[in-house]
């Protein structure tokens, strides 16, 4: 109940917090959609390089698998934050309604008695919404951890790609460029999500 009876300011800042998290996740989804292209590019470059970069071809194939997994994980993250935004907005509405009921209750003993059952019903609804939001946050944190673990494996793949690029002969520079692209993209996703995770844990 204490969570429900927090004041309007903290409820609005909860919705704002959710909106900020949503914007961060949308940014990461946009960036991660580029990983698939980079992975495809890596495979094409490896194919053009032929035998010289067989190792790179293996890594880029694994990278393609990674990019599909990342896409799925980001879709999951997007769905979870969507639910959270919706539920936080619903809570905002309930708080707004509750505020009006409290204003009536403040008008004296008779009003207080009249509003008691009404507020009790409202509090029950808000309790349920609060529990939904709690579950949403929990699921979001779990999914965020999964995506971060996936990014760590992506980081390992990009380091492997850089090593393999060295053995690419005359295609080495091109392979290195692609490997750098992979590393930059994965690192960017990783750092945004790591920051988001620490903000969510505050």
């Amino acid at each position, binding site marked *: 109940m204490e969570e429900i009876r927090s004041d*309007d300011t903290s409820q*609005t800042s909860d*919705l*704002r917090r959710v*909106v900020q998290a*949503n*914007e961060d996740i*949308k940014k990461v989804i946009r960036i991660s959609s580029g990983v698939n292209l980079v992975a495809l590019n890596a495979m094409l470059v490896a194919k053009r390089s032929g035998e010289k970069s067989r190792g790179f071809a293996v890594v880029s194939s694994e990278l393609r698998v990674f990019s599909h997994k990342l896409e799925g994980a980001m879709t999951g993250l*997007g769905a979870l934050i*969507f639910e959270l*935004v*919706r*539920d936080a*907005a*619903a809570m*905002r*509405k309930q708080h*707004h309604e509750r505020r009006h009921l409290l204003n009536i209750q403040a008008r004296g003993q008779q009003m207080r008695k009249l509003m008691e059952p009404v507020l009790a019903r409202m509090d029950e609804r808000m309790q349920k919404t609060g529990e939904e939001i709690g579950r949403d946050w929990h699921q979001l944190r779990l999914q965020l951890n999964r995506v971060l673990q996936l990014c760590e494996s992506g980081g390992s793949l990009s380091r492997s790609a850089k090593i393999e690029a060295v053995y690419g002969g005359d295609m080495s520079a091109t392979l290195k460029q692609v490997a750098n692209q992979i590393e930059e993209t994965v690192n960017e996703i990783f750092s945004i999500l790591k920051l988001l995770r620490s903000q969510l844990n505050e």
Partner: protein
Amino acid sequence: MKKLEFIYEDGSHKWAAVARDPERPNYLIDTNEYLVINGSEALLADPGGMEVFSAVFSAISAEVDPYTIRHLLASHQDPDVISSLALWLDFNPEIKCYLSCLWSSFIPHFGGAEETFIAIPDEGMGITLGNLALEAIPAHYLHSSGNFNLYDRKAKILFSGDVGAALLPPEESGLFVENFDRHIRHAQGFHRRWMGSNAAKLNWCERISRLDIDMLCPQHGAIYRGEDVKRFIDWFAALNVGSGIRE
């Protein structure tokens, strides 16, 4: 869940429709909300009722940063148009709301303070969104006595509020009109009952027919495109309105 769909894009100038919620209870009339975006600023036309706030807010937030919404437009005073006002202002107190001067002391019953509102005079006015010029076009008595459409000359889009509205069955709930003759059957009863003045209707048809419009976007039902815009205007001009009451 409501979904946001972009219906027009030209670089950072976009229109989006927020429509079709399969989870909406039947006792709530279905509504379309429209977002006009120009760069980092947006205007939300007819933001919707309080009961659909979370659906609209989450649909918008999935694609657009809701903090970019600097303005609301209330085409008229109905609760399905603007009763979510207080919740939008809770989220961002800096939001301004354009409304007909006729309703400037009525709509605040939904929320807001004096500084929230920008009253539109009866003859209409320009609304700027960054460097984009929009126009609030009078549509009084169709159906509200103080009523405005929103015209984007560059995008050739007219947000027409309740004009053009249709109450669609679930099996014909596409966002765009695909078969005008089949669609308009669902608009007839609404227009006959809600639109109260044949004179106001003909005046509107005459003015609107002179505008260059690719999409006519109503607050209920489906969007008219291309030739269907003219077809609708002609159909509306010929319809006897204010005739929904049996004598």
